[in-house]
C-alpha cells in the first residue's frame, strides 16, 4: 500500500512541462485550485479536463500512474459523494425509510466528487513534473518578498527539501523494521483495532528513534560543511524566467480568468 502513494512523487522527463520555470507551475497550480472552487457549473469543467489532458500529454505522463495516485484518496472521495447524496435538500426522486435521494443531491454529489478528483489530479501534475529541488527553489523564490516581514523563506524551503528527501528513506526503513519484527513473530495484519494499534509500537518506536538519530547526524554534517542559512547563499542552478515562461504564464492567467468568469455569465 505504501507504494501506491504518488502524491509528491516526481516522474522524471525532458518535456516542455518539465522544463518550465517552477514558479510558473506553482502559480498556475494556485490559479487552478481557485478556478476549480470558483466554478459552480459542470460545463467549465470540460475546459479544466481538457487542460489536464493537454498537460498530461505534453509531459508524457502515463495515465496509469495518475489513476494510481487517486487510489489512496478514494475513501475520502466516496465519503464526500455519499454525504452530499444523502444530505442535500431538494426535489425528492425516491425515498427509502428515513433516507431520501433528491435530484439536487445527485447533481451535487457527482459535482463534488468530480471537483475532488480534478483537484487531486491537477495538483499532482505539479509534483509529478517538478523535481523536489526545483519545487523548493520555486517556493523559496516566491516567498522571498515576505522576508521583509520576517518570514524565513530560505529556512522553510530547506525544511521542505529535507522532508521530501527523506520520504523514500523513511518508507524503506519502515519496510525493514516491519520485516525484522515480523521475523520475531510480530503480527501487523490481524486482530481488532486495539490490538493492531498496539502492534504498531514495535514499529513506531524504532522508526522515531532512527529518525531523530538521522536528523541529528544530518545537522552535524551540514554544520561541518559550514551551512548557516540563506544569508548570502548562492546556488548552483539559478532560476531563469525566460520569454517562454512569461508567455505561458500569461496565457494560463487568461485561461483561468476565463474559467472563473463563467460564474457570472
Amino acid at each position, binding site marked *: 500500500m505504501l507504494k501506491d502513494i504518488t502524491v509528491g512523487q516526481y516522474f522524471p522527463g525532458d518535456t516542455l512541462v518539465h522544463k518550465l520555470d517552477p514558479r510558473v507551475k506553482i502559480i498556475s497550480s494556485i490559479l487552478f485550485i481557485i478556478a476549480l472552487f470558483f466554478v459552480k457549473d459542470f460545463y467549465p469543467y470540460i475546459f479544466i479536463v481538457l487542460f489536464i489532458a493537454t498537460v498530461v500529454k505534453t509531459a508524457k505522463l502515463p495515465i496509469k500512474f495518475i489513476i494510481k495516485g487517486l487510489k489512496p484518496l478514494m475513501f475520502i472521495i466516496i465519503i464526500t459523494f455519499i454525504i452530499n447524496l444523502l444530505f442535500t435538500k431538494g426535489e425528492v426522486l425516491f425515498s427509502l425509510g428515513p433516507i431520501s435521494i433528491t435530484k439536487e443531491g445527485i447533481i451535487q454529489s457527482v459535482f463534488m466528487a468530480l471537483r475532488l478528483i480534478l483537484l487531486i489530479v491537477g495538483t499532482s501534475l505539479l509534483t509529478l513534473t517538478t523535481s523536489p529541488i526545483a519545487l523548493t527553489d520555486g517556493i523559496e523564490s516566491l516567498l522571498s518578498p515576505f522576508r521583509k516581514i520576517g518570514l524565513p523563506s530560505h529556512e522553510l524551503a530547506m525544511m521542505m527539501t529535507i522532508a521530501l528527501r527523506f520520504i523514500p528513506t523513511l518508507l524503506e526503513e519502515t519496510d*525493514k*523494521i516491519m*520485516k*525484522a*519484527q*515480523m*521475523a*520475531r*513473530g*510480530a*503480527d501487523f495484519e490481524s486482530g481488532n483495532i486495539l490490538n493492531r494499534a498496539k502492534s504498531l*509500537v*514495535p514499529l513506531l*518506536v*524504532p522508526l522515531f*528513534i*532512527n529518525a531523530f538519530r538521522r536528523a541529528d547526524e544530518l545537522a552535524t554534517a551540514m554544520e561541518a560543511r559550514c551551512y548557516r542559512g540563506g544569508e548570502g547563499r548562492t546556488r548552483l542552478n539559478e532560476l531563469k524566467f525566460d520569454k517562454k515562461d512569461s508567455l505561458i504564464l500569461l496565457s494560463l492567467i487568461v485561461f483561468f480568468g476565463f474559467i472563473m468568469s463563467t460564474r457570472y455569465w
Partner: protein
Amino acid sequence: MIINIENLNFIYNIGTPFEKKALDDISISIEEGDFVGLIGHTGSGKSTLVQHLNGLIKPTSGKIIVDGVDITNPETKMKEIRKKVGLVFQYPEHQLFEETIYKDIAFGPKNLGLTEEEIELRVRDAMELVGLDYDTLKDRSPFEISGGQKRRVAIAGVIAMKPKVLILDEPTAGLDPKGRDDILDEIKKLYERENITIILVSHSMEDIARLANSILVMHKGKVIMHDKTREIFKSADLLEDIGLDIPQVTKFMKELKKRGHKVREDCLTIEEAKEELTKYLRGTKNA
C-alpha cells in the same frame, strides 16, 4: 536435509518498468546441523534469498521446504515458519523498542505464545549465550547500553525463539575488532552447544573461513558455487572474477607455494597456517 529449495525465482516490481530479477532459478539443499557461509557481492541476492527462507518474501515461482514444511504453501501458518527459522537482520539494534532489555528479548517468545516461566528461562539462557549478565542488565533500558551490547540484545531476541535454523545477515558489520570477535565466538558457542543449522551472511572471508563448514557463493541472483569451505577457497581466480576474495592467510600460502616453497595452500586460519609453516620450516632445516 533441513532446507530444500527448488527452482526458486523472484522478480522485484513485476509488471512495472522497474522490474528486476533478484533470484534466478535457485536450487539448493542444506544439511541439518551445517554451518553455511553465504557470500556474494552487494546486490547479488543474498538478503533476498534469506528473507525467502523465513517467509518474509513470497517467491515468484519455486518451492522452499524447511524441516519438512512447505513454506511457500499459503496454508502454512507464518508462526510455524518463524519458529523454525530465526532471522537476524543487518544492524539488528535498530529494531529495539522496549523499555527494558528483558522485555525486548521476550518479544519473540511472547509472540510464539509461550508461558511466562518458559519465557523467563529462555531470556536468561539467550542473554547468557551472547555474554550479557542477566541480573544486572535485565531491567536496564536497551537504549542506554553500548552499540556492541545493543547488537547482542537484538541477537538474543532471535535466539530466545530457539529456531532450528538461525540466519545472521552480517552480524558483525560496523563493530570494532574485539566486538566482532566476541560476537563470532558466541555464534560458534551457540552452534556447538545447540547443534542448530546456521547460515551466516558476511563480507569477511576470514570470518567465513573460521566458522563455516560449507559456502554458498551468489552472483547476479544465481548460486554459482556450493561446496565445502576448503574447496571453495581453492578457486581463488573464480572468486576474484566476481569481485570476491579469499582469506588473507590462504592468499599468503598460495603466494609462498608459487615462489617454490612446498606448503599446503588450502590453509584457512592463521592457526592452520602456523602449523603448516612450522612443519615446513622444520622440514627444510633437517634436510
